């Protein structure tokens, strides 16, 4: 081993990066929770939260306070230890991908060489933790939701991986900053429109959002894998879900929509462009959620295996051919 020195500067940078990431995770959950309720209300011609603060913007903060003060109930039949550990397991993996997200040219937690694979690998732990939560509850709704969620997640992971590979065929790097830097002139959503579409559809399914929200379909499964969770256990799942949304949208931004590139994006100002793109994508996801009806389970699985995977395989082959021909 060669000399390994971690200066005080490095340690400080690490701690600050972590604090910023945690802040983003929590604020993202607040903002998204509010936006989701408000946009849903507007689409359904209601008012949504109006009572606390102007246009009810304090509602989510108060909900947060209320939810911490709730009793933590562990069902009698549940697997007690596993039931308590599951929310922690679901929260921790969603913090990690933020480490490698490039917010601006000089604003990234740590530009790991294999950043993209890191995000994929860490998100795959999330699947298991959702299952653990559903299983430990020993509730029929929870287990159905968990099993659906897992099989949906693994079905849509393949198209995601394949569409990422077609982008990496062009960039030849897994570093998030490298991928953003490769889109200085033209965004990859124009170079790889098929991969972009496939990624967006699969990402919606990965995050268990409507029209693919079978794991937590309110009308048939009450709440899916977190039916039995009360208080902060539930809210950790919610935060993790919104953070997951942020992550898939951020990855889409990095891969297909030019990351922090935009007019006047200097060393740091690119963060505004990045957040703008991410939130536009997330708003689109909310819009889709309240517009389309839920699909049936066999339709959901078949969409992945019969359409998305063959299309992404063909797309990958064509990309390989074209990259070599030019």
């Amino acid at each position: 081993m060669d000399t390994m020195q971690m200066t005080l500067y490095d340690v400080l940078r690490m701690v600050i990066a972590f604090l910023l990431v945690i802040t983003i995770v929590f604020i993202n959950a607040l903002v998204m929770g509010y936006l989701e309720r408000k946009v849903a209300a507007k689409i359904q011609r209601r008012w949504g939260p109006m009572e606390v603060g102007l246009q009810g913007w304090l509602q989510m903060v108060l909900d947060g306070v209320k939810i911490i003060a709730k009793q933590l109930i562990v069902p009698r039949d549940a697997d007690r230890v596993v039931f308590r550990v599951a929310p922690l397991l679901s929260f921790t993996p969603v913090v990690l991908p933020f480490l490698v997200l490039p917010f601006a040219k000089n604003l990234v937690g740590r530009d790991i060489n294999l950043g993209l694979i890191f995000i994929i690998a860490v998100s795959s732990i999330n699947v298991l933790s959702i299952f653990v939560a559903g299983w430990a509850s020993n509730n029929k709704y929870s287990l159905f939701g968990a099993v659906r969620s897992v099989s949906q997640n693994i079905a849509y992971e393949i198209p995601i991986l394949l569409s990422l590979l077609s982008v990496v065929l062009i960039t030849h790097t897994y570093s998030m900053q490298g991928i953003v830097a490769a889109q200085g002139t033209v965004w990859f959503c124009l170079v790889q429109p098929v991969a972009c579409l496939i990624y967006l559809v699969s990402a919606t399914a990965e995050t268990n959002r409507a029209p693919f929200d079978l794991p937590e379909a309110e009308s048939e499964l009450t709440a899916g894998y977190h039916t039995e969770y009360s208080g902060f256990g539930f809210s950790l799942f919610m935060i993790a879900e919104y953070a997951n949304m942020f992550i898939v949208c951020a990855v889409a931004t990095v891969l297909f929509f030019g990351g922090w590139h935009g007019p006047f994006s200097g060393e740091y100002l690119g963060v505004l462009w990045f957040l703008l793109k991410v939130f536009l994508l997330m708003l689109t996801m909310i819009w889709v959620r309240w517009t389309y009806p839920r699909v049936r389970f066999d339709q959901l699985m078949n969409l992945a295996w019969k359409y998305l995977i063959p299309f992404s395989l063909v797309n990958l082959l064509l990309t390989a051919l074209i990259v070599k021909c030019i």
Partner: protein
Amino acid sequence: MSSVLAIDYMYVMFFIFGGLLTAFLPFVIAWLIRPKTVVTNRSHQTYECGIEPFNQMWDYRFGISYYLYALIFLAFDVDVLYLFPVVTVFDRVSAVRGVSEFFIFIGILSLAVIYAWTKGVFTWEKKKA
């Protein structure tokens, strides 16, 4: 282990422990300020739309389709694993060789989907009541 990798590693470890701690601390607060309400016999019952829960969920079994999907997924995932390193160096090999190797690999991989499709793994039979 190189120095860059070591620092990457430190960052990741710090984030893992920090994430666990951040998730855990609010539980401590919640435990401290939780309401001490009366716990009735049914407070700790599992939820089942208002009726008494019957049987343990663990006693039920799921259809084989889930398992089949999982198996196909596993093989695909391992396949993609080998594509990860290959695509990074795709520009370094000659065109004919690279493209033909890639086509053979993906071609054989696609046979799996075609086989499963023709064998009807993706068709869901209606349950015969």
